[in-house]
């Protein structure tokens, strides 16, 4: 049963990500990306990491995709069609990616990962204790660094996206005589 669900999920992930990369309509591409991220959250739930799946759903599928769709709607027409990329660029990129994928999959087939049998400790208690443990093996310092990074990004995004009314003398309206 889990095997069938895994195959359905991986088929969804691969086909939707391919469609998201190939689609010429911008908004549709973002919706395909939403499907990919939701399927990945389903994969996390399937593998048993419920907290990570919930975070993926809320932050990625709920936050990042909405942000991307907002920016698309702010900067494009709703049925904006992108021009098809040049033939040479598609050929070079496709050859590069197919070669890389074939090489990596070939390398994977030869490798022997021996599965480790150990008691499962993936409940929320373990995650929280490891995340906030300042001692050995704990992740308290990265946690604090990420929180400072989030604060810095918040301030940075406000400063970058803020409209400058008086000090801006490089905008095209003011340069025109």
């Amino acid at each position: 049963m889990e095997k069938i669900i895994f195959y359905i999920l991986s088929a969804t992930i691969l086909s939707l990500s391919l469609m998201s990369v190939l689609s010429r309509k911008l908004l549709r591409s973002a919706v395909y990306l939403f499907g990919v991220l939701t399927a990945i959250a389903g994969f996390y739930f399937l593998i048993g990491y419920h907290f990570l799946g919930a975070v993926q759903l809320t932050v990625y599928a709920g936050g990042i995709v909405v942000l991307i769709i907002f920016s698309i709607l702010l900067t494009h027409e709703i049925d904006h069609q992108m021009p098809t990329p040049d033939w040479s660029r598609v050929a070079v990129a496709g050859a590069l990616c197919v070669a890389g994928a074939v090489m990596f999959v070939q390398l994977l087939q030869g490798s022997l990962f021996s599965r480790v049998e150990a008691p499962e400790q993936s409940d929320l208690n373990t995650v929280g204790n490891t995340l906030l443990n300042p001692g050995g093996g704990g992740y308290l310092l990265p946690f604090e660094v990420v929180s400072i990074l989030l604060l810095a990004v918040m301030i940075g995004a406000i400063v970058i996206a803020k409209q400058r009314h008086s000090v801006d003398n490089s905008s095209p309206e003011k340069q025109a005589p």
Partner: protein
Amino acid sequence: MIPGVSLIEILTVSTLMFFIGVYGFLTRKNLITILMSLELMLNGAAINFVAFNKYLYPGQPNGQLFALFLIAVAACEVALAIAIVINLYRKIKAVDVEQVNTLKH
């Protein structure tokens, strides 16, 4: 672990997803679609972390925490990139990489 599914299959899926992202990154010209391809690549890496944690080190939550930090950093990156895109659109009315040749203040 998922019964009946080996680690190799999960890694194959994440590899293919990563290279689909690379293809989009190389062929697209719109800044927002480049950002979306970047998200695909990051998610492929996150699947790798989670699969290795589940199959090789089931007693520790380390890979899960790496994936959590990856999600946080990706959220930061998207927020900054969207701010830059909107500011750029306000200045030059375009978000194609070929028309963006100035990041000067």
